């Protein structure tokens, strides 16, 4: 009886694996519909979205949309300095992005 249950669970696992593989290839998002347009949005999508979420709603990193960025950094220059230097889990982008790109992405986060 117990062995039968284990067999059923293993078959179920195989089915789930098959579903995951199908979803990996079938569940493509609409191409172009959410493509970032402004330079700040492009920098955000390429460097920030994987932690802060595509829409800035948060992920492994905190939310920056909905006024969260301006609330934490009332002065934009403080946010620029934070992005350049990093802190804790937030990596330093001073060596990866140009000053102009950092300013663009900071301005972008303040519009989300």
């Amino acid at each position, binding site marked *: 009886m*117990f*062995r039968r*249950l*284990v067999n059923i*669970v*293993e078959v*179920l*696992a195989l089915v*789930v*694996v098959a579903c*995951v593989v199908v*979803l*990996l290839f079938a*569940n493509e*998002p609409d191409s172009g519909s959410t493509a970032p347009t402004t330079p700040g949005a492009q920098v955000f*999508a390429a460097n920030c*979205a*994987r932690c802060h*979420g*595509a829409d800035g*709603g*948060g*992920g*492994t990193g905190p939310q920056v949309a909905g006024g969260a960025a301006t609330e934490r950094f009332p002065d934009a220059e403080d946010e620029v300095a934070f992005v350049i230097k990093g802190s*804790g*889990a937030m*990596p330093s982008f001073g060596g990866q992005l140009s000053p102009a790109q950092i300013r663009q992405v900071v301005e972008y986060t303040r519009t989300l």
Partner: protein
Amino acid sequence: MAVAGAAPGRTDGVVARRLIGLLVVGGAVALALGVYGKAHDPTLEQPYSLFFTGTIQLKVWFATAALGLAIVQVLLGLRLFDKIAVPRRAPGWLGDAHRLVGTLAFLLTLPVAYQCLWALGFQSTDTRVLVHSLLGCAFYGVFTVKVLAVRVDGLPGATLPLVGGLVFATLVGLWLTSALWFLTSRPPGIPAF
């Protein structure tokens, strides 16, 4: 390790071919995941959260639950191989329990891996992320080897414990580079659900 009824020289060749076959299949699975993660455009979406506050929280706690089950599975495996003596008399259902717990742990990893592959892909932005990406691919490769090795006859006796240990080690590495990192990079207090 000899296969019953076969000459030793021929047996060694058969065993070697079986082991190489397992490694090739496991390597192919790991490689395929890495290629998909690298070639697929990350969607950066967080498609599901169940009763958690977000997909990331779901992933952290699913991974933690999978690790917990994996620890139980290792203990059951140690008892199966008589490396521990608790309970003193191993019940007849121990092997089935070992399989069930391992399968449940594996099932818990699937929604985690799906979001990682589909939404984030294979990344190398820093050491932690690179190690996590590599371990993620390796885990399913080694897991495939483990599942197949259970069903292949005549393998050396150390194969299953070795591969099982590797599965557990990669899962621990995955957890350390993701869930633990997430939990320890939060402000102190009750972990986010």
